[in-house]
């Protein structure tokens, strides 16, 4: 599918013989740029995405581990706290006899010692086999109460020890009951039951040293809060999130809290009691470093895409410029062929006409010549002088016609592309002869200053004629009636220079910069804009140089330079 898309895009780049319309280049530019951007940006995006996720995963692990460790450690603290209290109660149950514990004074003393040695004990009571509270020291007035029907009583009778969930006790402090059974040799047993306030729980939690925004608390397996939570309510409230699956070791879940924030939920189930320690840390807080990294990644990705875009734009630009240049060169070549074909047909026509005219001209010439011969032989011919003058005039006119046809034939001959030794002065004389009539008509002073020492150069006569014809035509178009055009040749050992100077309208710098470009014309509808570009092409092909100097309203000078031998032949 992607391949098809690329193929579709590329099909726009395929060459066709039709001349590319300018709008096509814009579409082409968009397509190429988009394609290059796509091919470069997609791997970049994939890499950035992979990087993002891999890093995030690694970072999560890095973040979860300490959380797990701290939860585990705190769970151990809790267990140690409870184990200590339980074993203290157990010790009392073992060390004292039922009788001693049943003594109110003794029990009060024991409670006092307990409270001194262990923080958190609130009361202590002795319960006999039947569930009756035999002795009690503490803030409640519970003596005589029967616990036989209570679940915990049965549990302690079966398991030997029992730690209760938290409940609200006297003075509205949360409390926990620790109960231990002692079996006597007689088979009877009694239970020592003590109440602890959970103030110590809060202490352990605060010793976890969690940052602000994080939360840690104790739950029971039923999801009832056993300590106050910063965000999930007070002690004995129902925990709003679902309970995590039981695990013997501390585990970390990634989930959302009640408000939809991503959080790490670290927890540990207590193996010997009903408690679950939970710690909740907002992800955003823990991933703060990650966000910096992500910022960098986004920046690098953005910069990469921008660089790719700029590069592809630049490359496309160059590519299109080359294409356009090639297209223009091809078009120019086509036009040149068209132009020379046109010239060729004109040339053939001219040759034919010249030939056809030359024969009758020859007849006129001979007939008139015979007339002159005959009249010359007769001394008594009336008005002999007058007739001879008239005949001479006819003969001169015939010769003028002959010159015209010869020039036409010369024009036709130019189309045969051959290199031969040429005297450039002859070529210039012949070519300027074509324009004499127009120059005469417009009273333009067309002067030739030809260096007699010009040596022959190897070149193409016809092509040279076209060059001079083009330049002289331009000069004629530039000068006003009565203006001046001067052609000068200078020969030296390496070749010939030709300077064609006119005092016409001249050109601005902007115009001068464009004159050799194809299709550039100042003649509006009259010109094709090809003359000087063809001239330039011919001069280059003949191994020559062409230069121009011009000043607005002062005139223009074309300087052409031809070597004795062209370095590269046409």
């Amino acid at each position, binding site marked *: 599918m992607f391949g098809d898309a690329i193929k579709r895009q590329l099909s726009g780049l395929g060459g066709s013989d039709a001349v590319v319309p300018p709008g096509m280049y814009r579409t082409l530019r968009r397509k190429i740029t988009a394609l290059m951007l796509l091919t470069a940006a997609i791997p970049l995006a994939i890499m950035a995405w992979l990087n993002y996720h891999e890093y995030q995963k690694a970072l999560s692990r890095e973040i979860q581990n300490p959380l797990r460790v701290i939860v585990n450690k705190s769970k151990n603290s809790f267990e140690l706290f409870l184990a200590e209290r339980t074993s203290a109660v157990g010790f009392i149950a073992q060390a004292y006899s039922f009788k001693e514990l049943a003594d109110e004074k003794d029990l009060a003393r024991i409670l006092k010692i307990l409270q001194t040695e262990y923080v958190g004990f609130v009361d202590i009571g002795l319960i006999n086999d039947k569930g009756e509270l035999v002795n009690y020291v503490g803030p409640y007035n519970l003596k005589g109460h029967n616990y036989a029907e209570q679940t915990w009583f049965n549990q302690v009778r079966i398991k030997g020890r029992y730690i209760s969930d938290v409940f609200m006790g006297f003075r509205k402090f949360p409390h926990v009951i620790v109960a231990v059974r002692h079996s006597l040799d007689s088979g009877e047993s009694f239970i020592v039951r003590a109440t602890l306030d959970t103030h110590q729980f809060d202490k352990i939690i605060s010793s976890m040293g969690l940052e602000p925004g994080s939360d840690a608390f104790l739950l029971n397996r039923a999801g009832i809060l056993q300590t106050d939570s910063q965000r999930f309510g007070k002690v004995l409230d129902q925990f709003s999130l679902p309970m995590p699956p039981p695990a013997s070791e501390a585990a970390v879940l990634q989930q959302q809290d009640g408000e939809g924030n991503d959080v790490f939920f670290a927890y540990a189930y207590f193996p010997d009691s009903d408690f679950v320690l939970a710690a909740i840390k907002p992800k955003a807080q823990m991933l703060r470093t990650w966000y910096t990294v992500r910022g960098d990644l986004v920046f690098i990705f953005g910069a990469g895409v921008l660089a790719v875009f700029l590069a592809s734009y630049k490359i496309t630009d160059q590519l299109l410029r080359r294409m356009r240049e090639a297209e223009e060169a091809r078009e120019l070549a086509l036009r040149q062929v068209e132009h020379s074909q046109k010239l060729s047909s004109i040339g053939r026509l001219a*040759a034919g006409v*010249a*030939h*056809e005219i*030359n*024969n009758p*001209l*020859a*007849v*006129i*010439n*001979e*007939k008139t*010549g*015979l007339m002159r*011969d*005959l009249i010359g*032989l007769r001394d008594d011919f009336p008005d002999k002088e007058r007739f001879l003058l008239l005949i001479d005039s006819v003969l001169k006119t*015939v*010769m003028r016609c*002959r010159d015209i046809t*010869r020039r036409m*034939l*010369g024009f036709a*001959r130019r189309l045969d592309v051959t290199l031969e030794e040429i005297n450039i002065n002859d070529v210039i004389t012949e070519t300027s002869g074509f324009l004499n009539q127009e120059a005469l008509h417009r009273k333009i002073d067309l002067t030739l200053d030809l260096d007699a020492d010009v040596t022959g150069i190897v070149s193409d006569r016809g092509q040279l004629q076209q060059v001079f014809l083009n330049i002289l035509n331009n000069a004629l178009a530039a000068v006003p009636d009565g203006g001046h055009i001067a052609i000068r040749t200078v020969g030296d050992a390496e070749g010939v220079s030709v300077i064609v100077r006119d005092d016409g309208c001249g050109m601005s710098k902007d115009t001068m910069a464009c004159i050799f470009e194809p299709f550039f014309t100042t003649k509006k509808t009259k010109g094709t804009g090809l003359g000087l570009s063809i001239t330039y092409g011919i001069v280059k092909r003949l191994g020559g140089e062409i230069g121009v100097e011009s000043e607005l309203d002062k005139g223009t000078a074309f300087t052409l330079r031809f070597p004795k031998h062209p370095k590269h032949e046409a």
Partner: protein
Amino acid sequence: MRMEDVNILLVDDEREFTATLAERMELRGLTVRCVYSGEEALKEIAADKPDVVVMDVMMPGLKGLDILRHIKATNPEIQVILLTGQAGTRDGMEGMKLGAFDYLLKPLELDALLGKIAEAAAIGGKA
């Protein structure tokens, strides 16, 4: 050999031109025969061998260059001056390569033609 004794054959399909040119040459005392096609020219050459042939290149039927080839093959001593209406075309150059004495462009100046005939006759050992 004097100019008057040079045996000249004029060949051109343009009768008005050929006849008039011949008349002008006769007025100057030259011996000139006229024919108006290549075929006639071959017959005339066979009948009476000329010293100099003045011949148009472009003719219907046998072309000037064909006759030139024939002359140079059979009678190389006959000098041929070609006439052409097309300046500097391949025909003129080709003729020179085939052994023509020279070629002249129409319309021509009579004096120039007479000069060429004199030169050609001299080479042929007549003048």
